[in-house]
């Protein structure tokens, strides 16, 4: 069993507070993704879980044991760094065996474990090479192999895919998912890319400026974002935020009186008849193949993005009218918090 719990975790560097009090629970076998913009404290959080940084306040509990005072090596975590941090003067085999050698594991067992990990990650032909002789994807797999070999309770990934090219990223995302299913281990993954978060996570933790904005499954975050930040962060292209006055005048959606903004995702717009929705003028159209991304302007000069079918041929300057199904319309109050449909 490997569960993680963070209680009121705070971190301060000199006078700057970076983490302002985070409470979180991670269950055994979950794939949790910490996502957020740069500087939100997600890497700091990961390092505190790993034991590389000391929290200023609060507790880190692994398997319901307080581990604040336990050293990084003894917490049972294994970390895959963003820059892989492979030992450049050692071969791939030695890189993976280093941790076990330090723990005085017998040589035969080391060899068995390294071979297993190498098989799992298809590193067999590369075992005698140095990191300098490997490609980016191969290095990343060695870094993952180094973590696997230690049989940790929790895997920690610090933006591992950000140094890879786009195509490799997609295939590695898949590999990591499969790895998680095969090993069944608890994995905590940090990224700034919401696509990675949405595709890989069992649970997503959205962070901003050292605070948790929302915790939930990808579906929860997509369909019920709790504030404008999460709503705008999750989903690509970004959700459109429209002033509520415009919407009230145009469409007949049940919107709470406290609403200041309304959010509609680009993919949820549908063409409608005159008077049934919002009037917009097409400015530019981006052809994406299966879809087209239309940049349009509303009557109050604000811009919206609409994702339509690839075959729909909208021309710049054309006026169209669009609306969206009621359950895809999100209302937000003055503080940017989500308003439920039946709120008064």
């Amino acid at each position, binding site marked *: 069993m490997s569960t993680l719990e963070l209680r009121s975790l705070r971190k301060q560097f000199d006078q700057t507070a970076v983490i302002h009090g985070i409470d979180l629970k991670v269950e055994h076998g979950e794939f949790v993704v910490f996502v957020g913009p740069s500087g939100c404290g997600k890497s700091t959080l990961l390092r505190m879980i*790993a*034991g*590389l940084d000391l929290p200023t306040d609060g507790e880190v509990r692994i398997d319901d044991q307080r581990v604040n005072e336990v*050293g*990084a*090596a003894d917490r049972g*975590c*294994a*970390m895959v*760094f963003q*820059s*892989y*941090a*492979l*030992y*450049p*003067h050692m071969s791939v085999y030695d890189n993976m065996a*280093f*941790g076990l050698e*330090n*723990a005085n594991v017998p040589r035969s067992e080391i060899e068995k474990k390294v071979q297993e990990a190498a098989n799992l990650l298809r590193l067999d032909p590369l075992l005698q090479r*140095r*990191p*300098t002789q490997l490609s*980016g994807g191969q*290095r990343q797999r060695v870094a993952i192999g*180094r973590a696997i070999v*230690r049989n940790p309770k929790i895997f920690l990934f610090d933006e591992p895919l950000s*140094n890879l090219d786009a195509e490799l990223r997609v295939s590695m995302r898949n590999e990591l998912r499969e790895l998680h299913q095969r090993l069944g281990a608890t994995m905590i993954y940090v990224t700034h890319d919401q696509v990675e978060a949405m595709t890989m996570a069992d649970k997503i933790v959205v962070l901003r400026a050292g605070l948790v904005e929302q915790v939930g499954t990808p579906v929860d975050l997509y369909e019920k974002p709790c504030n404008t930040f999460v709503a705008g962060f999750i989903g690509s292209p970004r959700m459109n935020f429209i002033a509520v006055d415009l919407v009230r005048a145009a469409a007949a959606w049940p919107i709470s009186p406290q609403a200041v903004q309304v959010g509609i995702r680009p993919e949820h717009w549908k063409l409608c008849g005159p008077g049934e929705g919002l009037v917009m003028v097409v400015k530019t159209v981006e052809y994406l193949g299966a879809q087209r991304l239309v940049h349009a302007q509303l009557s109050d000069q604000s811009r919206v993005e609409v994702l339509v079918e690839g075959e729909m041929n909208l021309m710049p300057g054309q006026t169209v009218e669009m609306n969206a199904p009621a359950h895809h319309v999100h209302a937000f109050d003055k503080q940017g918090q989500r308003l439920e449909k039946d709120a008064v």
Partner: protein
Amino acid sequence: MSTLNFLLRTRGRQSLDWTDVLSYAYLVIGLFTMFAPVVWLVMSSFKTEAAISQFPPSFLPYAQKTVMVEGHAKPLPLFLVKREDGSQKEMAQVNRIGIMANMIDPAAPEQRLQVNIRQREPVNEMKFAWNNYTDLFGKFTFGTYLWNSVFITVVATLLTLLINSMAAFALSKYKFKGQKSVFLLIIATLMIPPTIILVPVFLVINEVGLLNSLWGVILPAVATPTGVFLLRQYMLTIPDELIEAARMDHASEWRIYWRIVLPLSAPALAVLAIFSVMWRWNDFLLPLIVLSKNEFFTLQLALNSFQGELNTQWHYLLAMTVITLLPVTLVFAFLQRYITTGIAGAGVK
């Protein structure tokens, strides 16, 4: 062939550009200035004592030809004699009294001829006096001096590398209170001229009982601020993430130092090793004050002692100098490779 092409590169394609002329002139002059004394030294070390004191000096080692003549136990020097009838004949000289020399024809040893020394000139042949070198090991305790120098250099370099790298590791990779002050303190000692601390160093060595011992030369100067500074600056470029990854890999601090930081600092260590070898091998002052017994002398002290007040045995001195030059040259040539090999910085992208 490619080496030759490299060495004879010019800017102008067909004829020489004026910058080529200047460059090559400069290079040739530089080569001559730096290399000529060394070449002269090596050539002279093969000359016999007599040839060295000859004036005008010759470049190649020439010695006078000698010949064995019947009836004489030792070989007689050969001269080219100009006779009254104008012809020249090679004759051996038995002895010389004032300006008249007694010469005999090697073929007809009974006939003696009195020749004015101005009528004769020596017959020279190129002779390499190997005995200059062999005598060193035979007649003198040159082997001991060589061993002392080698021992001091090797052990001191190893200790220097070990201690300086440990200090540099602590100063570069650990954050502790007063880290900057300690570092500044270490660097500040560079401002003290060595001559000022000479007497205190001698007193301390004496008290500890290391006078007239090779360790008395090795230990006092093992921790050098230059070494610490050089290694610290290099270790700062080793990514912290490597150290953190090693920590998470259960590595003790010693293992992190020994298996990760030290191998990755190899280029800087090579530089420090070269400095240390060259300095220790040529060091004169410290051995001079510490070692007074002959059997502990280093090569430099031995070279010094060969220069007597009234008489200097130049041929032995030159031979010893050449031998003293060799090891440092070899070490430098060998270690230079390591400086140009970049090892760290490739496992982290």
